[in-house]
């Protein structure tokens, strides 16, 4: 303790005060300069890096998702177009098939009708020929029986029969057509 009355000037530093203050300052300065702040700065930098990295990664992921979505939508549109095209094709093909079938059926029916007609014609011709032969013979039989004798004159006989048959033809033909 200083003696009473001996008042030191608080603005005049004793040597030891300056010395130990400087020592304390150097120690604290080294503590922060060499230890605390490097660690603090490293942690801050790491944190910044982490956050920025995270943001970049999120953006990339979003970009990828967007691209995938676009790709998917494009594929979907393509598939829809494809389906529509297939449907149209199928419809066109169906129409064509129906048309072909119809044409074929018509052809077939026409052919059947024509065939039937031809057959009818042939049968008719055959029947006419048979009838003509039968009728000629019967007529001659009948005439010989009516007249009672064979006609001597071959030429006259054939002419009579032919004339008769022609008359028959002209009567029956319009009816058949």
């Amino acid at each position, binding site marked *: *303790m*200083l003696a*009473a009355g001996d*008042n*030191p000037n*608080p*603005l*005049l*530093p*004793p*040597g*030891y*005060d*300056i*010395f*130990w*203050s*400087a020592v*304390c*300052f150097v*120690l*604290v*300065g080294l*503590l*922060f*300069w060499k*230890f*605390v*702040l490097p*660690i*603090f700065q*490293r*942690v801050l930098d*790491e*944190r910044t890096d*982490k956050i920025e990295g995270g943001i970049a990664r999120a953006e990339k992921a979003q970009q990828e998702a967007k691209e995938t979505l676009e790709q998917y939508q494009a594929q979907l549109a393509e598939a829809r177009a494809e389906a529509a095209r297939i449907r149209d094709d199928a419809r066109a093909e169906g129409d064509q098939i129906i048309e072909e079938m119809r044409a074929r059926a018509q052809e077939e029916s026409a052919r059947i009708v024509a065939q039937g007609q031809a057959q009818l014609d042939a049968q008719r011709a055959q029947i006419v020929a048979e009838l003509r032969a039968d009728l000629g013979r019967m007529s001659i039989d009948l005439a010989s029986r009516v007249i009672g004798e064979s006609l001597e004159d071959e030429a006259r006989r054939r002419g009579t029969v032919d004339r008769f048959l022609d008359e028959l033809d002209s009567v029956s033909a319009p009816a058949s057509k």
Partner: protein
Amino acid sequence: MLAAVLAAGDGEGFHAPGIEEFYPGALLFEGTIFEINRIMLVRFVMVALLALFFILALRRAKLVPRGLQNVAEYFLDFVRLHIAEEILGKGAARRFLPILTTFFFMITALNLAGVIPLLNIAGTSLIGTPLVLAIVAWIVFNYAGIKAQGFGPYMKSNLLPSGVPLYMAPIIVPVEFVSTFILRPFALTVRLLANMMAGHLILVLFFSATNFMFVEAGSALLAPVGVLTLGAGFAFTLFEILVAVLQAYIFTLLAAVYIDLASHAEH
């Protein structure tokens, strides 16, 4: 009541604390530059506590802070964001962060010793520490200025600001010289020193008065006054905590401002 105090003062004597508070007896190396007394020990203890706190907090610093690391980072961020980067901008802040951080935490730690039981005196209440820190601040801001502008332009921008007519130089130059190169460090020193000295004296006054009222005065009449002085002592203790941090903030902020002013020619 006052009469009673004075009467008692006449007798056994109530001694108001004085300047001798700051010059306790030497414990080691008396009379040398290495003399260690109670206040020096308080400084060592606070420096050790400060180092211990930061070593414990940052020994295994993690990306995601926990516990003490959170607290340490909160304080470090306060200096970094609200003093260094706010005054100096991001670039210069990084250069001067070590010195500003040292100022802030050393002053805070030594100031807080004033309200820590058993220590009970601020390490900054003796002129040595404020003076050493102010001299360092003086060196740093002059270094920053000379480095940024060169010696000649730096002196000129400080002593004869542009726009001042030349015939004013004989008046302006001495005034500017004194204000920039002498008053700045002096004001830094005295502001801190006076605050901590005054704080210590007020606390000693209230608590020794409380002791006197309760114990030494030997009069029941004075006990209520003792309650009053005890309450006031407690209130001022809280106030001293605020002052401890506030003075550290002011010192560091002003150091940053001086560095910033020195780094830019026009101000």
